């Protein structure tokens, strides 16, 4: 079966193509349109997927949209009426988008993508998330927990994945209805802390390490957690179900103190009382979320009696919580879909139709390099045509040595290899790399290259055989998460001493373990750096400037290179050095 999955219209649109159970390509629209978290119909991503599979739209068996739009519309209508008369603005906005366009997305998709309505299928939002995790995982029998802001009407779901006569099945056990959502609670407090919803959550996670969970009692009144893992939001404190722009009420500010003005300065460690309070609120939020998730996992275990767990949905991007689920949760094995957010729904929708509906073989997700790549010859031609000076290395070893040498003396550079990554993280194909040993390097990358807040940590990538030297893998269960940077790991004493650029204040790091299935050039680079410095670790951050999507093409990489303070840029086997151009 040749199946195309699509997610769109909420945030982070994406397309994925699955041919006979093989994930041929998957990419987010933002990489093509260069609009961060572009939510519009992913026409360019679809085009790319078809190119990669060398198929035309007519040859596709099914195009699967990742949710049921009409059910979502019903939920919105009802919750608007319930909120009456408080939601004029949100009502206006919702009616305009839905009656104006969203409601007619079926005919719009057919028009824009050139498919027929007979080709078009609709999955369910949380089912798509569940499929994106379970069907890529190595498990036969697993509990599947999907947690996000809200889908059609569910906010959290527990599924059971199992095989029946060799055919994978996904059974819904429980679901939690809107507005009772840990994801929306997290987002509301992200807004309270002055960050942008849907992308500031990472910042909150980073910020939480600077504070103490002093407000757990207050949080207990924001939402109550049942013994059965259910959650009930106290509507006194939140307004996301009726307010168009503000997600929390004055009552929340009365409880936790005034909210932070977006854009006001944040420096840590800090003596400022308010700044410390924000960190404490972030820490309390993080702890509250983790504890809730642990209770939820307990219920998922009871419901499924399974040994393995699959996670997806936006909340599964919380790598700190994932670590605690691995360590303290009731499951032996844990797998997280790397594109856990709504982009991942495109892949899940396609996989569901492929593996469950048509019994195609299940894929194994050994790498997230599922995006576009560029032929080295075309890169050279581009550089030649533009008159850019570069050195071409025909020997990978030499390239690795040269780049490692530059990094060991404090240089920072771009690393562009092969296909770009699926999901929000750069894992060595579109990365900016640097020496992990000095905090000064970290500060420079934050300040002059990524232009982002000083308190935010960077992630390390580490040679798989060296991981135990620097990081605590945990009860051996992180191995499934380690290649995709899905969970944090505590740093060892040696790492705390030597890797000050990549160990966060709380003594953890969001590690990417580079094993044999990773990009060979990236592995070789780590080995070369280890030979030079004795450290098989690099600081790794995505190749983008602040608030921009990760670069896709060589020209975009070059654009980021010249617009920032990067010292060098590696495009496949070509090395460009700043002082030479």
């Amino acid at each position: 079966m040749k199946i195309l999955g699509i997610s769109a219209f909420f945030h982070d649109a994406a397309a994925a193509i699955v041919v006979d159970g093989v994930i041929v390509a998957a990419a987010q629209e933002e990489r093509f349109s260069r609009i961060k978290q572009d939510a519009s119909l992913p026409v360019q991503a679809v085009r790319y997927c078809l190119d990669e599979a060398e198929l035309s739209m007519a040859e596709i068996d099914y195009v699967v949209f990742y949710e049921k739009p009409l059910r979502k519309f019903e939920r919105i209508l009802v919750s608007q009426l319930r909120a009456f008369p408080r939601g004029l603005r949100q009502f206006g906005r919702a009616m305009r988008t839905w009656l104006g366009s969203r409601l007619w997305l079926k005919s719009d998709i057919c028009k824009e993508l050139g498919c027929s309505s007979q080709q078009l299928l609709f999955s369910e939002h949380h089912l798509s998330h569940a499929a994106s995790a379970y069907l890529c995982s190595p498990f036969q029998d697993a509990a599947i927990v999907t947690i996000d802001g809200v889908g059609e009407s569910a906010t959290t779901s527990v599924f059971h994945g199992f095989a029946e006569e060799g055919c994978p099945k996904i059974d819904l056990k429980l679901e939690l209805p809107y507005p009772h959502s840990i994801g929306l609670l997290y987002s509301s407090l992200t807004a309270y802390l002055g960050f942008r919803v849907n992308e500031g959550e990472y910042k909150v996670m980073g910020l939480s390490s600077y504070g103490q969970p002093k407000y757990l009692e207050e949080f207990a009144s924001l939402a109550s957690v049942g013994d059965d893992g259910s959650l009930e939001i106290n509507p006194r404190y939140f307004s996301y179900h009726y307010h168009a722009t503000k997600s929390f009420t004055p009552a929340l500010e009365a409880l936790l103190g005034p909210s932070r003005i977006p854009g006001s300065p944040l420096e840590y460690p800090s003596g400022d009382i308010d700044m410390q309070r924000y960190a404490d609120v972030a820490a309390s939020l993080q702890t509250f979320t983790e504890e809730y998730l642990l209770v939820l996992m307990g219920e998922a275990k009871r419901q499924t009696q399974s040994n393995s767990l699959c996670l997806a949905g936006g909340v599964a991007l919380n790598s700190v919580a994932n670590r605690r689920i691995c360590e303290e949760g009731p499951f032996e094995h844990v797998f997280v879909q790397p594109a856990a957010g709504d982009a991942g729904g495109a892949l899940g929708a396609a996989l569901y139709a492929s593996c469950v509906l048509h019994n195609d073989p299940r894929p194994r997700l050994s790498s997230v390099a599922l995006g576009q790549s560029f032929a080295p010859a075309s890169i050279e031609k581009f550089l030649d045509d533009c008159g850019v000076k570069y050195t071409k290395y025909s020997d990978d070893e030499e390239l690795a040595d040269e780049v490692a040498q530059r990094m060991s003396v404090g240089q920072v550079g771009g690393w562009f290899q092969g296909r770009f990554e699926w999901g929000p993280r750069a894992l060595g194909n579109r990365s900016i790399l640097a020496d992990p040993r000095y905090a000064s390097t970290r500060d420079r990358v934050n300040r002059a290259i990524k232009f982002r807040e000083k308190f935010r940590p960077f992630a390390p990538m580490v040679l798989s055989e060296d991981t135990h030297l620097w990081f605590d893998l945990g009860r051996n269960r992180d191995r499934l998460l380690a290649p995709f940077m899905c969970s944090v790991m505590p740093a060892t004493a040696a790492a705390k001493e030597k890797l000050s650029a990549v160990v966060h204040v709380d003594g953890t790091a969001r590690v990417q373990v580079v094993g044999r299935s990773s990009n060979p050039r990236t592995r070789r680079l780590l080995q070369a750096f280890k030979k030079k410095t004795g450290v098989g670790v690099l600081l790794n951050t995505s190749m983008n400037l602040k608030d921009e999507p990760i670069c896709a093409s060589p020209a975009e990489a070059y654009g980021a290179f010249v617009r920032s303070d990067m010292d060098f840029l590696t495009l496949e086997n070509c090395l460009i050095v700043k002082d030479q151009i």
Partner: protein
Amino acid sequence: MTTKVPVRSVFTPASWGQRMAERGRTAGELAGLLIRNGRWWLLPMLIIMSLTAVLLGVVHVIEYAAPFVYTVF
């Protein structure tokens, strides 16, 4: 740097009539859903809202005649 196969080239896009028919089916499906869930009484509201939407469509057409549209009102 890559060759681009236009997605639409292999398909004749649906005609305006077909698309409107598709929209009609979608509206019917929505009505069915609401009736199934005992919310049939929402339908009149949606009809009124749709008429408003048509009105809004007119407003958006007026946009083209703007910025002098305020003289009309």
